[in-house]
């Protein structure tokens, strides 16, 4: 082939790619997909860098998906003047992140730990720790090159919808092919597409489509039941539970010894999910014991009328509007429960009904 023909091939390539990118982006926009940021190792690491500025008004949030939905970061900021640092990970136990914070000699901030019992009390080294362990391990090696790529990628992500790793790349698209699964193989939970988006500060929000469509909400409810079906049925062995409690206390003590603060929060769930959680993880044996063992304050949503008035559309996470109200109600309760110096900025008033306990 002559050099001129190589040039022609290169131009054709360029035109085809340009056409594809424009077409692909337009297609997904026409499908009314909402723009979402990739909640990956890089976004977590970028957020992790901020923990040294943590304070009671700017706590580090660790946990699983519930606190990512339920604590509305702009609302918290509007009320306290500072935006929390969201380090929670979907479907993941927060314990590896708590260990990481405990071991970080430079961290003396405030940590709010969301307890979703099925994940928090997952056995040491089990699958629910995987994503957290990966991020904790990767963070110290997050190179300058990766940081620069992250900044460029973030710029592109803010404009282009198709750069969604979770939904619109080859791997998830292949999984959507109408090929039945093998008998006896469970390939993990199957959530419907385009039901949630992630913001640049790692909050997760339901899409308008999900909130408007009860059949989608029912699909997610069925997915929770499917997950519960595939979850271990036996209670946690006593020595393992004690070890989990001990390790949690050790990390909390490490943080407190440096002048930091720790608080547990049990965010709302309802319907069959809440019933299942109460059955599998009785409060007295898990939540109450956790607070006593670790000598740490805790806020259980069901104890406060202001926190237990919400309905989760799929039994496990609050709607965006309820997350705003939940956050507004949570801040004064945190202040009252812990005595932390969180300044009051908004018109939210500390009424007796807000702070009352069941």
């Amino acid at each position, binding site marked *: *082939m002559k*050099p001129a*023909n*190589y*040039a*022609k*091939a*290169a*131009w*054709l*390539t360029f035109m*085809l*790619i340009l056409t*594809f*990118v424009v077409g*692909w982006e337009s297609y997904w926009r026409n499908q009314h997909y909402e723009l979402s940021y990739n909640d*990956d190792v890089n976004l977590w690491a970028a957020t992790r860098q901020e923990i040294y500025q943590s304070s009671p008004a700017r706590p580090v949030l660790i946990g699983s998906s519930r606190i990512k939905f339920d604590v509305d970061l702009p609302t918290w900021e509007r009320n306290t003047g500072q935006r929390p640092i969201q380090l929670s990970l979907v479907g993941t136990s927060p314990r590896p992140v708590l260990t990481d914070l405990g071991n970080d000699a430079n961290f003396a901030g405030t940590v709010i730990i969301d307890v979703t019992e099925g994940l928090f009390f997952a056995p040491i080294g089990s699958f629910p720790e995987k994503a957290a362990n990966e991020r904790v391990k990767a963070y110290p*090696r997050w*190179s*300058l*090159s*990766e940081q*620069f*790529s992250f900044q*460029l*990628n973030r710029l*592109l992500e803010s404009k282009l919808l198709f*750069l969604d*790793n979770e939904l619109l*790349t*080859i*791997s998830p*698209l*292949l*999984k959507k*092919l109408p*090929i*039945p*699964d*093998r*008998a*006896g*193989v469970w*390939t993990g939970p199957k959530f419907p597409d385009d039901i949630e988006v992630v913001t640049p500060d790692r909050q997760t929000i339901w899409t308008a489509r999900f909130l408007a469509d009860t059949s989608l909400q029912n699909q997610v409810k069925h997915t929770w039941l499917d997950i519960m079906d595939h979850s271990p049925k036996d209670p946690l062995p006593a020595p393992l539970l004690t070890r989990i409690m001990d390790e949690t206390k050790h990390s909390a003590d490490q943080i407190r010894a440096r002048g930091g603060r720790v608080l547990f929060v049990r965010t709302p769930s309802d319907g069959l999910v809440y019933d299942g959680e109460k059955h599998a993880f009785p409060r007295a044996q898990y939540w109450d014991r956790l607070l006593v063992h670790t000598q740490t304050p805790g806020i259980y949503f069901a104890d406060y009328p202001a926190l237990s008035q919400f309905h989760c559309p799929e039994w496990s996470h609050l709607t965006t509007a309820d997350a705003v109200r939940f956050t507004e109600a949570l801040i004064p309760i945190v202040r009252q429960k812990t005595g932390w110096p969180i300044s009051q900025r908004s018109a939210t008033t500390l009424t007796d009904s807000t702070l009352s306990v069941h």
Partner: protein
Amino acid sequence: MVFNSYTFVVFFVVVLGLHSLALPWRVKKINLLLASYLFYALWNPPFILLLWLSTVVDFYMARLIAGEQRPLQRKLWLTVSLVLNLGMLSYFKYGGFLLENFTALLGAMGIVFQAVKPDIILPVGISFYTFVTLSYTLDVYRRKFAPEPSFLNFALFVTYFPHLVAGPIVRPEDLIPQFKTPRTATREQLTWGLFLLSLGLFLKVAIADGLLAETADTIFGLPFPVQPLDAWTGVLAFSGQIFCDFAGYSTCAIGVSLCLGFTLPENFRYPYAAIGFSDFWRRWHITLSTWLRDYLYIPLGGNRLGAFRIYLNLMITMLLGGLWHGASWTFVIWGALHGLFLCVERLARDWQTNRRANRPERIADDQMISRASVLPGISQTHPLSGFGLALLTFFLVNVTWVFFRAPTFGGAMLLLLAMFGVIPNGAPMLSNVAILTVALVTVGLVGSHWLLRDSSVLALSRKLPWWGLGLAWATMLIAVILTQKGSGSFIYFQF
């Protein structure tokens, strides 16, 4: 930085722009050297000191060796170079492994010794650049060539960013002569270089990361046995992943370098079409296998010291080649298996040669039946029998990959037993989509290797019409865009 990153895109555009300016050649080389240091430093800046140390010491040791006539003094300067390079490699790569085995050995002797686990980070590319600089001092010692008088040329030879962190492992004669005269890529080189960069990214991002990594990681990460179908799918997924990851990196490196006007040596030549293990090592990680041949196998005596020493030398070379890949006994076993297969192949070839030598010149038709054997000699010249042998080689290579990828010896054995159905009632783990994907990629990979076995992508591209090449090129890049970032790092960075 890695080739599959936005940082590299910006970096490469700037480097390419600077290299195409009408600047003096020396300035362009300084630009390339500084860019290479930046390329490396963006990983972990302090480790650049090791690179400098290796560069400076080997540059001056080679000069001292060349200027010295006394054998003992020459050996002394060579030893300084060897101790520095191999010492760095041993400390950073094998420090933890040696301590762990030392502790185990003491334990076996009844001595309780609890060592503090060393927290050593492996500097990226150390296995590659120490081999690059070692080949230089060794060749000067052997008087193969005179030491390079220009420090700039030598430093650029060691540090040149396309090959720095994961090869190809260049030799002085590959690169230093190219730095002596001004070079800029021709339009054809630039276009072909960009095509190779696209091909490399396609292999790495779309195939290795996008289609295969998840399945391989799932199967190799399980602590319990799986069904044979799942086990084989996991191993085939890794087989494709390791090739596409590493050959992808080499192809990117060759393409990037070509865009700057420099050629790097070929590192892969369709290895899954190899007929036998000696052929495999002529096609897989070629620059490592030739390095091991020239600086280990031949100095050990190579083929010159009789049959026993040939087999011994083969085994030593492959065991150390295995250990080069990682500080773990599983890599040693991987190397040992390759050594064993090479020995068996050599035995079979010698036996066949002897049989031919003892055979009468011509066999009469009526004698044919009496000479037929249960296992007839397989002719490699016949396409079908050649393909059959290639498949047999591919099968055995896959068996060895189990030890290469498995985190522990126990994990490798568990998977091997599952592959051959020895463990009944293993769990089914993979979806039909995953199995089909791996099957299609494997067939595509082996098929394309076989078709291109005696050809090349360049030769194929010359046969295609311009629109065909453009279409193929666009398809690869669209697949990269669809896969997006992938896992980021390349597997061979950890070696």
